[in-house]
């Protein structure tokens, strides 16, 4: 095969080869152009602009003139509240990994392939994901309710003897947990769906073979199903981490990062500075730091964890 192709190439006129390549390139360029233009205008340009503004002390009105260099970045990295926001983001990431994803995985395994009414459960579990974040947040605010005497959740849990009503969103050490519950409620269905799709890609023959070889259900799951699901799990974990780093609307609506920064995340911190305090230069710097964190994570994750899978 290879020899024949080399012959073909050798038989071509020297100029012809270049001509075809150029023509191909032109075609490719034309097809890519719309996407590239949109990408540049709506993604690259704003990022560059944001980095530019992050070097100024700028209030958002008129053009930026007050150049402060890296001053904003120094301020960010020495601000205790921003460090706390990063910490809170990390807590959400860790909790998602430790609780939300395992729940989704277990449910996906349980729903399996043969359960009756599988489609029904899948739809219902997926439903919270379809809701907009704003609606989810408002709904849960009513459920938690600022007044512990009125909230639905408090009404239910106080039925259990010895349990007292709490102001879920008003207590410094509860608020992040309360928000995590909402995040889990909203996103577990999404991850479950990813896992279910992954499960469907595992050929039944492999599992049958394992069963014939005498594996019990637990061995089957730990030694066959999970390893074969590896790629899917890594993808879902990746999405979960990025999602956790970017949570905004839900938290902003429910607590605005409060009380007293107890549920402050990088995104709410950025919003507060940009659009409440109008320190847009500083806000841009925060956004740039967020971008860097997400970018570094992304690259590191791909480098370290994404290995070739058993299945394509």
């Amino acid at each position, binding site marked *: 095969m290879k020899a024949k192709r080399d012959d073909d190439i050798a038989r071509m006129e020297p100029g012809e080869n270049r001509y075809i390549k150029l023509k191909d390139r032109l075609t490719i360029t034309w097809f890519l152009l719309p996407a590239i233009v949109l990408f540049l205008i709506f993604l690259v340009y704003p990022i560059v602009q944001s980095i530019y503004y992050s070097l100024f002390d700028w*209030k*958002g*009105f*008129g053009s930026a003139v007050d150049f402060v260099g890296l001053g904003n970045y120094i301020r960010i990295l020495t601000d205790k509240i921003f460090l706390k926001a990063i910490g809170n983001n990390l807590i959400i990431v860790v909790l998602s990994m430790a609780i939300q994803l395992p729940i989704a995985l277990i*449910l996906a395994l*349980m*729903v399996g392939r043969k*359960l*009756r*009414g599988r489609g*029904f*459960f899948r739809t*219902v*579990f997926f*439903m*919270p994901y379809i*809701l907009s974040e704003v609606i989810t947040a*408002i*709904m*849960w605010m*009513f*459920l938690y*309710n*600022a*007044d*512990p*005497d009125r909230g*639905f959740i408090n009404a239910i849990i106080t039925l259990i003897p010895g349990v007292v*009503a709490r*102001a879920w*969103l*008003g*207590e*410094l050490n509860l*608020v992040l947990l309360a928000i995590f519950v909402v995040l889990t*409620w909203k996103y577990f269905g999404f991850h479950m769906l990813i896992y279910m799709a992954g499960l469907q890609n595992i050929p039944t023959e492999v599992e049958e073979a394992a069963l014939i070889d005498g594996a019990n259900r637990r061995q089957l799951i730990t030694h066959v199903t999970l390893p074969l699901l590896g790629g899917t799990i890594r993808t879902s974990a990746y999405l979960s981490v990025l999602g956790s780093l970017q949570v905004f609307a839900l938290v902003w609506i429910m*607590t*605005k990062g*409060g*009380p*007293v*920064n*107890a549920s402050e995340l990088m995104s709410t911190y950025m919003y*507060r500075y940009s*659009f*409440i*305090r*109008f*320190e847009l230069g500083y806000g841009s710097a925060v956004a740039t730091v967020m971008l860097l964190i997400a970018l570094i994570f992304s690259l590191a994750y791909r480098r370290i964890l994404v290995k070739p899978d058993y299945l394509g």
Partner: protein
Amino acid sequence: MKKILIFSLITVFTVSILLIGTSCKAEEAVEEVEEAEEAEEAVTEEEEVVTEEEEKEPVKFTWWHIQTVAEQALVWLDLADEFMAENPHVNIDITGYENENFKAKLTTVMQGGEPPDIFQSWGGGTMIEYAKAGLLRDITSFLEEDNWASETFTTGLSAFKYQDKYFGVPRDMGIVGFWYNKDLFSQAGVDIPTTWEGFLETCQTLKDAGITPIAIGEGDKWPGAFYWEYLATRIGGEEGFNAAYSRAGSFADKPFVEAGEALADLVALNPFQSGFLSAVWEADASVTFANGDAAMILQGQWGAGQFESVNADIMDKLGWFPFPEVEGGAGGPYDAIGGGNGFIIGKDAPDEAVEFLKYISSVDSQIAQVGLGMAMPVVKGAEVALEKETDKLIAEGLSKAEYYQLYYDQFFAAAVGSVINDNIQGIFAGTMTPEQVAQAIEDAVAQEMD
């Protein structure tokens, strides 16, 4: 089977939360729909009128207000309808936003450089920022014409002034003070406190009687800032503030630290309703107070209107008293923290928008607003509408105030105002010391002004 059971349970959980969440909101949604319908009616009416007469060039302008209580929003709709009937070429596009939504939405359009033509403003630092950025229209010439300003307004106009130019007019000016529930006070056998010491004792007595002394929507942050600002005013007086503001002194000086300490004394009594840190003024704290679940609430002149819309029964028991004195403080007993509402004019507004602003500043309009508890009069001749005892008390307080300080978060630009409110919340949560709070505020002011 077991699996199906488990899944059914999770299903029930997921779905029921959806249903409960949505049903809680249903009642309010109905109100909103009604309001929207009213607004639509108004729009269709004006369209009919426009087609009848075509002499003048049609003019359209936008108007954003923050009256969400139905009767209050109706005042504006009626005024707009009347004005459009008299001026058929004018078409007013009215939008009523909830307070916090308004601020968020306004931020966006201001950044985009496209302000609405007439919109809600509290004057002060935020307005000055807009004016500096050239986003507002200077209406000084209109105010001078026919002596509109001098013949109309009794107070409040200066809040809308920057460098001898006026950008809007007030429609309401009042002061912050304590609203209290007379029934609960007599139940606990307490009188109106006149000193901060007495106030703390009152809270303790109320608490001992099983009554929540104070409702507060500290999730909004500004309601708590009122306490700190008032204490600073009572302790440091006008001189204290001016020294700090002129940068001869600083906001980390003694009066401001002592204000935080006095506030911490109050917080230590735990006098607030449970969950106050996440409660907000409009949806939570005002409801707690109006339903008689707390004895006092520190709020502005708009309190009565809100309480009435929540629970009309409260009006018979509603009392008002000024913020108590602090022993040894430099401030006078009637010095006041306050502010008001007004409308300012966006840079691209047509003359008709200013004419309309004049139209809604009429005595009749003021009387209607005062009657609904949505304003304290700023227009000559509207004082007659002050019928409620509480309104009279506030008006008296306002007239006696020798030193009148606009709320700090409006007086300063947003970058400082937000820092003030955010940090004072730290005292309420017990996470920050009075010194830290004063220092954080000083840092923000220094960065902004030095």
